[in-house]
């Protein structure tokens, strides 16, 4: 199958994830969409690694990305939980402490 199909798929996924990050109100939902974006990037890398003679170049990188995504999700959730402990809502419309 041509590479372009995979690239289109991964970019579609990325845009869906991006739309979700920009639009959703719930913080956990944003984390989920970030995961979608990361997975889209993974897909892109694997699609391109298929074109190389050596087999495992892209896959190793994807493994790193997955690990990194997991760590970052943990950190994000930790921040959300600590914020939830402070104020009972995690609605992003009300988090504007850096406003002028």
């Amino acid at each position, binding site marked *: 199958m041509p590479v372009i199909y995979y690239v289109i798929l991964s970019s579609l996924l990325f845009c869906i994830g*991006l739309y979700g*990050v*920009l*639009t959703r109100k719930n913080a956990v939902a944003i984390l989920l969409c970030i995961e979608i974006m990361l997975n889209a990037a993974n897909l892109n890398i694997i699609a391109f690694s298929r074109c190389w003679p050596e087999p495992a170049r892209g896959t190793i990188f994807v493994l790193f990305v997955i690990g990194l995504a997991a760590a970052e999700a943990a950190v994000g959730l930790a921040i959300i939980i600590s914020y939830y402990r402070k104020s009972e809502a995690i609605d*992003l*419309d009300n*988090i*504007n*402490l*850096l*406003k*002028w």
Partner: protein
Amino acid sequence: MGEYHWIYHYVWMVPLFPLLAFILTLFPQVRNIKWTYKGAYVAIGAMGLSTIYSLFLTGRVISDHEFKPYNGYLRWLTAGNSSIEIGVMVDQLTAVMLLMVSFVGCLIFIYSRDYMRHDKRFSRFFNYMSLFAASMLGLIVANNFLLLFICWELVGLCSYLLIGFWFEKTSAADAAKKAFITTKTGDLGLTIALMMILWASATYGNNMTFNFVTPDEKGFFNILPSVPTWVLTMIALFLFLGAMGKSAQFPLHVWLPDAMEGPTSVSALIHAATMVAAGVYLVGRCYPIFAAAVIPLVVVAFIGAITAVFAATIAVTANDIKRVLAYSTVSQLGYMMLGLGVGGYTAGLFHLITHAVFKALLFLSSGSVIHGMSGEQNIWKMGGLHKHMKYTCWTFAIGTLALIGFPLTSGFFSKDEILASAFTFGEHSTHTIPFYLGYIPLLLGLTGVFLTAFYMTRCFTLTFLGNKVRSNVQPQESTLWMILPLIILAGCALLLGLVGIPKFNFFHSFIHFTRDSVGVETALYKFSSEQEGVNWIIMLISVILGFAGIISGYAIYGYKIQERFTEIKNSIPTWLRYYGNMGFKGLHFIVKNKYFFDEIYRYFVICVNLMIAKFCFIIDQFIIDKFVDLWACIMIWISRIKRWIDDKIIDAIAVNGWSYISIVSGRYLTYLQTGYVQQYIMIICLGIIFLTILGVIAK
């Protein structure tokens, strides 16, 4: 150069010693050293060293049989191929002049140590005198016109400083100015002569030079044969103009009598022995030029003769003892020029040397008289001093006799030689100069002999002879430091004649001018190397005139003056007495006022000068200053405009404007910070898209 004894190579040390004394006495540290007596002994020591050096130098010059002039120089200014050199030249004339100047100068310095000891500017006096001595000695050893001119001007400067030494007196300050300006008028001639010399040496000699002679035959005197006569005449006349200024010839003589405002040592050194001799020395040094162009020599002779008699007549009516001697100096300088002009090179220069000695003697003893009379200078208030001031009286008498030309004194031999040369000139000139006019120098010279004897006897009689002092001052004899130079000079005045005795004229063989130095032979001047015989007739006439002068002087001014005058008056018939009285009073009035020369100069020269000065002042004040003020106003207006620009425009835009922009933009840009993360992410994504589009377009 190697065959010259070392004493020639270091001749430049002779002017150097007084120059060092000048520099040393500038410093208070030197002045305050006890044993230098406020710097006086430094100056005296320096002059003493110069005297000793000159003595040995003269001895060596005399004893060198094959003497050629020594010329040592170094390059000073170069322009392309030609260069101006400075250096020293030693020939017989230089040696004799050095000896005279340093010897007389040394004695005068010794004298001044006591004469000036109460003066509050004592050290400065010796400072100035040392500078003068240095420049005079430098003038003598100079081997080119430029160095001579530099020293000439320096000597004039020192004369100004020393005449105006007591500058608190207005008369002294005025006299200093007068001396400087009058000699400067003569120096104009000298400057023109120098320029002509430079031009002539470049045009006719292919080598631009100021030198007198150089070993490689490039000096000015070497190329004289190839220079046309009219050029030489002009050069010689302008040189003589310079000499007229410095040596107080008629009509530039007016500064010398006024120069007596300075201290007596100054009068003795500068205005009797040395500086006024510089003009005569110049003529003597440039004698080849004068002799090659004959007309200037005739001019020199006539002007010298006129000066000699003119000044002698004024001296007859002078009442200040120093004025008498000043006019006497002018008269004797006239004699020297007369001697040089009639072809008596040796005669004129011999008179220069002897005159220096006895005139310095006369001035110093008159200073002793003034000192002893506590400042009184009018001879009518003196009298009978022979009882109180014996040494001064005897030395003044010896000086007087030498000046008059009393037989067997030095002045006798020198003056007689001049008169003999004048007679020879008259003889030779009957073919070239009509109507026996060539004898005028001789006649004027003989008149001068009579007048000199008359006025000096008058002066001596009124000052020293008689029974009592005509004023209330109690005179006292001077101290040893002042009397010793007098005695030494008196001895020299008597003995110096021995070197110039006509038959055994050692001086003539030493300093003479021969025909082979001149390219042209003329009828008027026959310069021969063998000495002329003694002219007994002229000698007899001059001795008779001298005695006549002495006798008439003593007869009229001897003691019991008033009785004398009444006796003489009563013995003349009435009508003669009446007209004689009027005529005599008229003549006396004119002569006593110095023939109104000062007044003539004031109304015809100084007035013009003042008018020009006032005119220039008015231009300066009303025209040029107005331009300066206008310019200042313009500058002020320009600065006001600039300030307005600066305030209203530049400050508004560049300074306040930027701050306004910063504040306003900041106020509105804060609204960008909303605090919503999603909006931030949105902007990031838009930015990425924008950059990507830009990148694609740029490709």
